[in-house]
């Protein structure tokens, strides 16, 4: 896989094929990240504008964050601009509500484990991600998360934004962001756990 710094250099020099590599690497993430914020209908326009802006401003990318995090910030700005243009707002009213632990039924009333956590066969990210079936399963379950949880987990884990920045972007408290992230992680953990135990998605 091409090094990020080499790719940035190629983008700066407008090397043929460089834009295609960059788009291939990040387009899937950008679309999935922005959909909970602007809806399916505007997502393509937002991301198209994001790429146009990003590549025009590639010389201002200083490499202090990951390229993907930089793209995420541009996409969030484009999302806001397009929502304003369409006189729409991100509907975040229901985003702060905690729908409770997805693993509550794994505990006794005393607070002790009822269903004990078992050892997993995989113990590194790479060992999980070399299995195509598992990658597909993770993506499928990310899509199934409640909108707010999906929005936050995409910004934090895949986009690499900090808690304060996410809270600011979504106009929510950092505490709310952390709860949403925790619930999303717990649900994704349950999915991986199911795969470990049953071998199926």
């Amino acid at each position: 896989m091409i090094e990020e710094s080499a790719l940035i250099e190629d983008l700066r020099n407008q090397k043929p094929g460089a834009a295609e590599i960059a788009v291939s690497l990040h387009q899937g993430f950008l679309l999935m990240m922005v959909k909970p914020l602007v809806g399916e209908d505007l997502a393509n326009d937002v991301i198209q504008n994001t790429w146009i802006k990003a590549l025009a401003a590639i010389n201002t990318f200083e490499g202090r964050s990951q390229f993907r995090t930089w793209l995420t910030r541009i996409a969030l700005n484009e999302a806001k601009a397009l929502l304003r243009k369409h006189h729409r707002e991100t509907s975040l009213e229901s985003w702060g509500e905690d729908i409770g632990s997805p693993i509550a039924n794994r505990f006794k009333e005393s607070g002790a484990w009822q269903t004990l956590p078992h050892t997993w066969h995989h113990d590194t990210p790479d060992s999980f991600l070399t299995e195509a079936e598992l990658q597909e399963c993770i993506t499928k379950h990310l899509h199934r998360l409640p909108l707010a949880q999906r929005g936050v987990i995409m910004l934090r884990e895949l986009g690499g934004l900090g808690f304060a920045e996410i809270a600011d972007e979504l106009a929510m408290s950092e505490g709310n962001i952390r709860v949403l992230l925790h619930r999303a992680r717990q649900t994704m953990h349950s999915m991986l756990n199911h795969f470990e135990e049953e071998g199926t998605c």
Partner: protein
Amino acid sequence: MLSCWEMSEMGSDIIDHKLSFNSRMAVMMHIGMCRHCRRYIKQLSLTSEVLKSLPLPAQPQDIARVLAALEKEERN
């Protein structure tokens, strides 16, 4: 003494190092004695790591659409 349920609720604060000093002490005491919670917290952290490295391949038509837009932009 924290219960295992409470440990599971604090899971992300634990892996993101967002605990107060007192909570951190209580968590360390529990973790030291409870291998089940040790395992759960470790797996939750691994889940987060897996997501951080997840490649999300784009659909060919989504890539083509952007490249066409970039080309059009360049011509203008």
